[in-house]
Each structure stands twice: as C-alpha cells, then as structure tokens.
C-alpha cells in the first residue's frame, strides 16, 4: 500500500491526504530509502537504528527477554494507572477496595490479576534477562556500564514489587512487609534509621501504607522509566546488541571519493557496523519492528490467559494479633528469607549486599575479552560456572523456602 504525497505537483493531494502527510512525513515505505527514513523520522520508531545486524534478530540468541520485561512494565503501568482510580491508601479502606475490585468494579478482578501476574513475570524475566546477558558475555567492553544499569533495574524492579506487595493490606501483605523492613533494620549503622524512614513509624501502619503507595505509584516507576530510557539509549550508543566478533576482518574497501569533512551519523557510534558488510544487516522496518510486535503480542496473550485462569491471592484482612504461621515473603524473596532464618545479618544484608557488589563489579573484574556474543562460550567456562552455581544456589534456597518450610519455619516435606 502506498500513499502518494506529491509528484512534482502533478497529482493533486486531497485535503485528507494533506492531513495524513502532515502527521506522517513518510509514505508507507516501499523503497529502501523510505524504509530508512521511516525509522528515522517517526518519533516512536526513532528509537531504532535504521538497520540492525542480522544476529540481533536471532530469537535463540536474546530469547526476547529484555523486550518481554519492558512490555510487562508497560502492561504494569497501564493496569496500575487504572487500578489507581479505585484504590485508597488507607488502612481502613484499602482492603475493602480490594473486595470492591472483585465485586463491583467492571473488569476489576481481571485488572488486578493482570497487574499481579505481570509483576511476578517482570521479576522473573528481568532476572532471566540478566542470566542471558551474563551467559553470552554481553557485559564486556564497551557495554560495562549498561550492565551496571541493568543491575540497578533489577533492584528497582524488586523494590517496586516489594512496595506493591503491601497495598492490598491483607495478612500476606502486612507480615511480608513486617519481615522485609525488619531485614533492612539489620543494615549496619543506619539500619534502624532506614526502617524508620521507610515505615514512617516504628511498626507497619497507616504511615507505612502511604509511603509505600507513593513509592510504588510515583517515585519508583519514574526512576525505573528513566533507567530504562538510558539502558535503551546505551544499547544504540554501544553499537547495538552484542554479537560474535567477525570471523575474518574484511579488508576495508577503498573509497574512491576524497575524504570529506561530513560525518555519517554512525561515525559517532562506537563499534556500529565498522567493517561489517551490508549483507550482514537488515532494515529495522519491517524486520525489527515485526519481531518486536511478535514478542509484544505473545507477552500480552500470555498475561491475558494467565489472568483469566488464575486469581491474584487475597488473604484475610490485616490482623495485627495473628501472624500467619509460617509468615512467608513473596517467592522471589523466599531465598532471602531462608538465608535469614540462619542469620539475620548475613542472610538479609551481608550476603545479598556482597552479591549486588559482585554483580555490579563483574564487568570490571572480568577482563577476558573473549567469548562475547555466544551462549556458553568455552573461553568463559570459569565465569559461567561461577555464575550458574550462584543462580542454582539461589533457586535451591527459594525452593526450600517455598515448599519445605512449615509452621515455625521447621523443615517439612511437601510430599
């Protein structure tokens, strides 16, 4: 389909076409030039480079995990804003509003399900995305700082999930936050202060609910959005997604033109296609766009199906006098809670703190430049083994905390 703009004034443009072309500067692309300028002149498509390396589009390389995380975030923003219309951050009303979502609000329960399952999904996908980036060695030069931004994004995602956990004001929420904020109090020197500022009081109550609400709906999404923007921007500036080094560097084709002082835009981008042949890359429109659309539709469909099938949990309203036994944190913190049951300081602050430091430092410790852009590269055997063992250890702790812990945190068998 193509819409003609003007052919040297010969074809008359109708008023409708005039409006159309005032909004969309390009015709529906049919030539390579139009395909480039579509990516270039459209505000929303402008985030893409005009061309991407073919390797970037291999589903088995990225598994689409970063994109899935981002689309889940979009779903969370939309459903979250809708839920805000009916939510009141008050200890006397919050739980009733949860019941209203079930009973009277149109699609209320469905929106809450979508929000809840997307939140769980986002934590899982961000974590898996981090595993993908590590196992393909993609944090190496020049992408070191984008990895650090990724670690921050993981932490903000967890904090977003944690603050949202309190809002239904049910037993699950209250006790998980009681336990979680007490862990913060074990931080050396300023632990008690952190807990007090976070809760606005010495125990979880109205002040804590209001504070968590503000963090959850305003502060943290803004921080996350900003970090995501920088994260994406840096992908472009660091030369696109990581890929294996070219097998044989092609000899540079001699340029017949005299050197000019006009720089191509790509000249400012580190490592973008230099030495790469044109046949290694494809136009973002429509190749990258269709791939993204596919991942988007897939993500939304899965969330819709899961939200139709499973309801978000809602327990009894808060009863300060009766902690559930055992009181458990959300699943992704159960590994932490399991470690905390051995030692509050080491399990809750020491070991997680070291882990975060280690994660942030990885691109600066690991100076081996080999093995970028391939899964489980042989040259990275040591790094990958260490990383995978820590991941497996964490998963084991989560499984033990989830299924093998009964009343008073005693060991029980789920079988």
């Amino acid at each position: 389909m193509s819409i003609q703009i003007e052919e040297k004034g010969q074809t008359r443009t109708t008023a409708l076409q005039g409006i159309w072309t005032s909004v969309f500067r390009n015709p529906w692309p049919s030539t390579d030039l139009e395909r480039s300028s579509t990516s270039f002149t459209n505000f929303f498509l402008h985030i893409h480079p005009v061309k991407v390396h073919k390797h970037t589009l291999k589903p088995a390389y990225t598994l689409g995990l970063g994109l899935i995380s981002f689309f889940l975030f979009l779903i969370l923003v939309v459903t979250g804003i809708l839920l805000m219309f009916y939510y009141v951050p008050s200890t006397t009303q919050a739980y009733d509003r949860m019941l209203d979502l079930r009973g009277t609000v149109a699609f209320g329960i469905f929106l809450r399900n979508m929000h809840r399952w997307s939140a769980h999904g986002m934590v899982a996908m961000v974590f898996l995305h981090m595993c993908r980036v590590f196992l393909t060695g993609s944090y190496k030069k020049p992408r070191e700082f984008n990895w650090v931004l990724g670690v921050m994004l993981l932490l903000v995602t967890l904090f977003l999930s944690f603050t949202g956990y309190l809002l239904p004001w049910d037993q699950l929420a209250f006790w998980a936050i009681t336990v979680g904020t007490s862990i913060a109090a074990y931080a050396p020197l300023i632990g008690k202060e952190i807990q007090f500022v976070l809760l606005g009081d010495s125990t979880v109550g109205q002040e804590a609910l209001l504070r968590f609400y503000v963090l959850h709906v305003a502060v943290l999404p803004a921080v996350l959005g900003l970090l995501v923007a920088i994260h994406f921007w840096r992908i472009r500036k660091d030369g696109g997604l990581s890929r294996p080094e070219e097998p044989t560097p092609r000899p540079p084709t001699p340029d017949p033109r005299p050197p000019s002082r006009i720089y191509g835009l790509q000249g400012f981008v580190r490592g973008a296609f230099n030495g790469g042949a044109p046949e290694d890359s494809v136009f973002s429109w429509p190749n990258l766009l269709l791939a993204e659309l596919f991942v988007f539709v897939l993500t939304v469909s899965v969330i819709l199906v899961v939200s139709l099938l499973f309801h978000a949990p809602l327990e009894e309203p808060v009863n300060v006098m009766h902690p559930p036994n055992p009181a458990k944190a959300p699943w992704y913190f159960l590994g932490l809670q399991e470690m905390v049951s051995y030692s509050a300081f080491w399990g809750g602050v020491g070991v997680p703190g070291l882990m975060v430091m280690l994660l942030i430092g990885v691109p600066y410790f690991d100076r081996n430049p080999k093995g970028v852009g391939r899964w489980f590269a042989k040259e990275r055997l040591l790094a990958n083994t260490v990383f995978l063992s820590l991941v497996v250890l964490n998963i084991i702790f989560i499984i033990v905390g989830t299924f093998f812990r009964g009343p008073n945190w005693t060991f029980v068998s789920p079988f």
Partner: protein
Amino acid sequence: MQSRRTALTWLSSVGLFGSAVLSAVSNLVFIKPRATYGQPMRFAIGKPDDFPPGTRISLDVKRVCIVREGNKMAAISTTCTHLGCIVGISDTGFACPCHGSRFDQDGNVTGGPAPKPLPWFKLSLAPNGELEVDKGQAVEAGSYLNV
C-alpha cells in the same frame, strides 16, 4: 586574570555543588517524620487486678506480654528480636511463627535465629491506679514491679 577566573569557577562550583548536597539533605530531613501517628510508646493497660496472679497475658496489639507472679509484675516485649513478628506464648515461654525463634519464660533465646533476648519494658503504677507501660524504656530482665 587567569587566576581570578579559576578562583571564581571554583567558588561557584563549590556553591552549586554545596546547594545540591544541602537540598538532598533537607529532603532526607523532610521524609523522616518528627511525630508519628501510630501507637504511643507509653500507654495504660488497666488496673493490676485485671491481671490475676500466675497469669501471662499477651496484649498482641500493644506487642507486650504482662506477666504476674504473686505480687510481682513485669512487661516483656512480644516483638521478635529477629524480624519483628509477634511471638506467641508457648509451653516453655515464647515461640515465633515466622522463623522459628524460641524464648524461655524470661525472654532469653533458647533456639532459632533470634540474636537477642526479648527486652523488658518499664512498668509503673500511675497515680490513678492504672498500670503504665513505657516501651521507650527498657529495663533489666528480672526487674519486677511490686503491686
């Protein structure tokens, strides 16, 4: 000329950076509440006669357990020193439902991850004859109030 420009650059940089730090600090001061709206630290719990001798009554909302042995009374915290759950009264003392910490009758740790014994709070008799607990003042374990 050059040195004056350098000095002015330095001065304004320090000024701008200092203002940024000051506003960050004032934000921190702002979000730390000066008054809390939750439970008061000092509260009355009723007359001594409400607690018959030989009983251990746990006031879960106040997070304190009132112990009376004969004419001696005490207030022991029921907030677990591990992660802040409310400990329940068990046969041997107190037990925490969250991570399995156990305490004896006086609040000493007998098992689990709790790092410290349960604190004892100051219990006093107000002029109107009511017992008053002050959670802001911890007393040594074993200090009773005679009623």
